[in-house]
């Protein structure tokens, strides 16, 4: 009994022998991605004796955790970040560090640094994160199903009309076999790629209104196309009332094509699926565009070890560390090249979808700090459209009214 109490007390009181400095590093990753991050952290520790990198993995509780940390003034030193507008007030601007460091920013995948940059009302720009990994959107297609139907594989530069013809040929709605997976509950951030491809967007470039953008005829066309696909049986709606995983369907040869980032690749590979990867289809006469889904590393303004934190962030972007990261696309072009990914048939399409460095488009959340609320209006409108499978333009019109109200809240 006494031993037990002593043990309990030691457990409570223990301030374990600590390294000279502990650097807190918070991530939302799990599984293989987390293992990679731990390896990078270990590499940094090896190069910096006396430093312990405390990798804090919060999975999908990430936002709750760091919001509480920021609110109480006790955040991790280095954090995974993508939603810069939401956290910008508490992140350390990295402009000076970047300038001093001699980091070759031109080697970063195009536009990724732009997505981590906030423009202030006075015209100045703050870089709030250093990119760590990214993905673009591509079309995955099920080669076995294409072979069986005697269809030619999709080619880069193909169009939505071609995709719909293939989907129609693949679909057997009676047997619950479908040509294309229509995401019924898409993240508006990802969905904007379709709008860009059809010459539209969620919000005006000045970030003041969604009228004529969210409610533009080009936006309605995109939704109408998906609605038509669902109604005709070419496509299957997933994510509304189903447990959301197109991955099972794809693996079971019940789904011919789906558009996504690098995320489902490990699952397709584990299932030893015979699949191909092509660019996103284009709307007739308009080039296809993808946005970039990026993770970056940021430093908290309240960090007590800013210089050390920067050293870690810099190490994270070094070729040595980037080479370890195999769960998405390497953030350094040189590493992508040296790994031969640009010519790898499974990866080439991702790089072809990468927007050019001078692309002026950027995701809606960079245009208005209140986009978070407006985005929820958009999410609801999308659900409404897929529940009704009708009234597209009317739903978008009323959504634009509510979204504009949310922007000024």
């Amino acid at each position, binding site marked *: 009994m006494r031993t037990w109490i002593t043990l309990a007390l030691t457990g409570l009181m223990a301030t374990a022998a600590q390294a000279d400095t502990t650097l807190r590093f918070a991530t939302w990753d799990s599984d293989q991605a987390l293992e990679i991050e731990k390896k990078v952290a270990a590499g940094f520790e090896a190069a910096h004796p006396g430093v312990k990198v405390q990798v804090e993995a919060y999975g999908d509780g990430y*936002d*709750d955790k760091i*919001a509480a940390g*920021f*609110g109480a003034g006790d955040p991790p030193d280095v954090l995974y970040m993508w939603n810069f507008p*939401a*956290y910008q*007030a*508490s992140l350390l601007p990295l402009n000076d560090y970047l300038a001093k460091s001699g980091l070759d920013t031109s080697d970063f995948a195009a536009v990724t640094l732009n997505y981590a940059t906030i423009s202030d009302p006075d015209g100045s720009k703050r870089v709030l994160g250093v990119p760590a990994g990214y993905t673009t959107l591509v079309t995955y297609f099920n080669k076995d199903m294409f072979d069986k139907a005697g269809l030619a594989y999709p080619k880069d530069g193909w169009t939505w009309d071609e995709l719909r013809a293939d989907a129609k040929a693949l679909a057997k709605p009676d047997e*619950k076999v479908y040509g294309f997976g229509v995401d*019924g*509950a898409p993240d508006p951030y990802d969905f904007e790629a379709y709008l860009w491809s059809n010459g539209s967007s969620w919000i005006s470039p000045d970030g003041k209104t969604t009228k004529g953008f969210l409610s533009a005829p080009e936006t309605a066309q995109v939704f109408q196309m998906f609605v038509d696909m669902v109604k005709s049986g070419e496509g*299957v709606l997933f994510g*509304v*009332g*189903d*447990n*959301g995983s197109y991955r099972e369907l794809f693996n079971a040869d019940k789904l011919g094509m789906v558009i996504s980032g690098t995320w489902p690749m490990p699952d397709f590979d584990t299932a030893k699926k015979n699949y191909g990867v092509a660019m996103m289809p284009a709307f007739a006469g308009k080039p296809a565009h993808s946005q970039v889904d990026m993770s970056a590393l940021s430093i908290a303004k309240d960090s007590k070890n800013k210089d050390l934190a920067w050293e870690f962030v810099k190490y994270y972007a070094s070729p040595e560390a980037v080479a370890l990261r195999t769960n998405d696309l390497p953030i350094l072009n040189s590493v992508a090249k040296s790994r031969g990914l640009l010519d790898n048939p499974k990866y080439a399409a991702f790089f072809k979808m990468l927007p050019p460095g001078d692309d002026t488009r950027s995701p809606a959340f960079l245009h208005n700090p209140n986009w*978070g*609320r407006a985005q*929820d209006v958009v*999410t*609801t409108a999308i*659900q*409404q459209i*897929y*529940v009704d499978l009708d009234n597209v333009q009317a739903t978008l019109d009323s959504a634009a009214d509510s979204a504009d109200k949310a922007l000024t809240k």
Partner: protein
Amino acid sequence: MRGKAARRHFWSRGAATPYLFVAPWVIGFAAFTLGPLLFSLYISFFDWPLIGTPAFNHGANYVTILTDDADFLHALTVTLKFAAMFVPSNLIVALLLAMLLNQPLFASGFFRAAFYLPSIISGVALVTIWSWLLSHEYGVINYVLTLAHIPAVNWLGSPNWAPVSIVLVSLWSVGGTMLIFLTGLKSIPKDLYEAASLSGVGPFGQFVLITLPLLSPVLLFNLVTTVIAAFQQLTLALLLTKGGPVKSTYMLAMYIYDTAFKYHDMGYAAAMSWLMLLLIIALTLAIFKLSSLWVFYETEVK
């Protein structure tokens, strides 16, 4: 001098004893609840974007919520509708299960454990399984329905069915409430039923005349805590439907959570929390006022 004398009187007469008994909670409340609570009341009068400096806004949060926030009104309506389904169904199912288990039965320990099992499993795993069972195209439940020539239901994908589905799923974790009922049932003396039986009172009569009155303190407890649980319900909706489709399961607790942790509008979230708190307190007070009509205590300290 008089104060000191009065104090000595207070201690010597034993008038302090009750306060010593309740002291742990009073101290804990003062230490861990009161401060944060007052802070949240204070902050509800500010515009506080979580990060950055709070700015006093003269109660504008409350004014906006009550006069110009369609989302709040919507979330409140959804919450009230949910509570209207959740509270009676949970209480009735828990009571029925408890009564089933209270019968002399072979392997009753096994059944008790079986009924309680879903309450032991972590919420995340439960929800994963349910979303698979309720899946529109591929779910087992719809498969069984079509076998019986009943048209498939879009359980989680239709704005009409989603709230019902959440209530159905919640019934699965009714084990805690069931156990509390069961302990209450166990403490009702068997001879009361025997006597009633001898005087020719049927099972239903026994339920109304014996079970309900003697169970009423426990029933009151379960009623109050279930009402509170209904208003605080977040996990199920968050994990199962994310408040959708078309906000049909977007409840007050979720709106507060989003405002605080997604929009980082702490002042506004605090104001909504206080309004919700007042609403639940009012409801509970009403339940207690009415409870004197139906709750029967063996020994009440008046």
